[in-house]
């Protein structure tokens, strides 16, 4: 019992660091770059992905003993496309403005490698509760990544951060660099973030090695 609970927790946590979709696995790059022109856009894209991921992981896990191995990928794609259509319809009906901003990247969730990756590498082999935790962990980590990248680009590109009608600070703090909202700014921001992370990880690894040498 105890062990099982620990592994559920691990399945959730691993999405943030060891199997972080953006920074460790480098999957789902297109939306990570395309919708991160602001914190709020990143957040809603993330929510959509969490929903699709949980839905698909649950059904893949439920049907894992029934799905024939040879045709599993087409079946996964159907199991992924269904919640994507639901997300599309709900967003179009209740938040048309956000639906227009995210544009074709909402239907493109269906080919977002994160979702197929989690189905193939986890939900296909694990029980349903673990698969839910896995989906929530990966999805929330992805959302967090999008929000951080979105916040950086929005702040540098507009000089402020806007969440709904709240704007911090009221006037831009400096002359905003509009390049941050364009593709070059997106690529360079994500690249520099990954580079910094790699350097930090390399430094930490070195320190660990000198402190407690492991095999």
């Amino acid at each position, binding site marked *: 019992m105890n062990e099982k609970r620990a592994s559920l927790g691990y399945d959730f946590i691993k999405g943030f660091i060891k199997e972080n979709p953006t920074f460790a696995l480098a999957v789902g790059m297109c939306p990570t770059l395309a919708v991160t022109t602001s914190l709020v856009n990143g957040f809603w894209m993330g929510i959509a992905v969490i929903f699709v991921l949980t839905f698909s992981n649950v059904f893949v896990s439920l049907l894992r003993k029934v799905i024939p191995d040879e045709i599993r990928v087409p079946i996964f794609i159907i199991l992924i496309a269904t919640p994507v259509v639901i997300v599309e319809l709900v967003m179009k009906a209740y938040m048309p403005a956000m639906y227009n901003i995210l544009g074709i990247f909402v239907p493109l969730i269906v080919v977002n490698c994160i979702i197929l990756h989690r189905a193939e590498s986890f939900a296909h082999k694990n029980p349903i509760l673990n698969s839910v935790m896995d989906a929530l962990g990966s999805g929330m980590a992805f959302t967090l990544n999008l929000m951080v990248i979105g916040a950086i680009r929005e702040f540098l590109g507009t000089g402020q951060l806007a969440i709904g009608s709240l704007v911090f600070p009221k006037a831009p703090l400096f002359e905003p660099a*509009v*390049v941050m909202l364009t593709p070059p700014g997106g690529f360079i921001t994500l690249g520099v973030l990954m580079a910094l992370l790699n350097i930090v990880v390399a430094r930490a690894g070195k320190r660990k090695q000198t402190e407690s040498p492991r095999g």
Partner: protein
Amino acid sequence: MGDRLLVTPPPHVKSAKTVQGIMLDVVIALCPAAIAGIVLFGFRAALIILASVVSAVASEAIYQRAVKKQVTINDFSAVITGLLLALTLPPNVPVWIPVIGAAFAIVVVKQLFGGLGNNFLNPALAARAFLLAAWPLHMTQDWVNPMSYDAATSATPLAGFNATGQTALTFKEMLLGQRLGSIGETCILALLLGGIYLLARDVIDYRTPLGYLGTLAVGTWIFGKPGELFQGNPLSAIFLGGAFIGAFFMATDYVTSPVTPRGRLYMGIGCGLITLVIRLWGGYPEGVTYAILFMNLVTPLIDKYVVPRYYGSGHDKMARKGGGR
């Protein structure tokens, strides 16, 4: 240290010269244009040049110290990057623009890839493109009237020339650089002086500037006048805008341009064509920056396919494809 820098994939540096010597030649060749820029546009121009060079050298030193590499600021390459960037900026931009631009050129475009010889874009031009995308208003409106030193926000003469095919400037005004423009691009006489020095010292290959300016001149002659063919003004096309400084000092950069004579000619022609297309049909008044950057991107392909390689083994397939022999 000079030896380390020579280990770049294309064997482009002639044995008798050191990297430092070549770089020093380029700095000397840029001096007339820098002095002309200060004379024409005044104290502001001097400040921009100083800020850019200091920022470039400091960024190089700080980055190399931070990653515990040997500090190579005395090879003059950072000085050249800073100087070149400043010469392509409008004279009246705020001082933080060259500071940020030079740091971007040195750290992001050059040092992250391992330093001199590893960058695939000309650092100064990539930084200029970055600044143009980041603060477009400063980069297109912060001009200074030559000799009177007061600020001007109107379009440069090139914009009018692109639209009508003619300019009100006299030949002498264009030669001496008495027009709105970036600090180092206007004085053709000074640039020519520097270019001839580099040619005489065998630092650059005449094919690149010849191909560049020749293509641009002929193309403008053919298409330059709206509605009429063969009525354009080829001389104004190469004297206005940044084609002269680009052709002599940027398209000839060793690291980011082709190695062989034929490749260098293609580099020049490609730059000329893209500059022409952007000027006449593009969204920007000037295309020199983007033309050279695009040709930088295809330089590895030019080196690989257009020009057969004779050394090394295992390149037979490429040699056949490229040379057709």
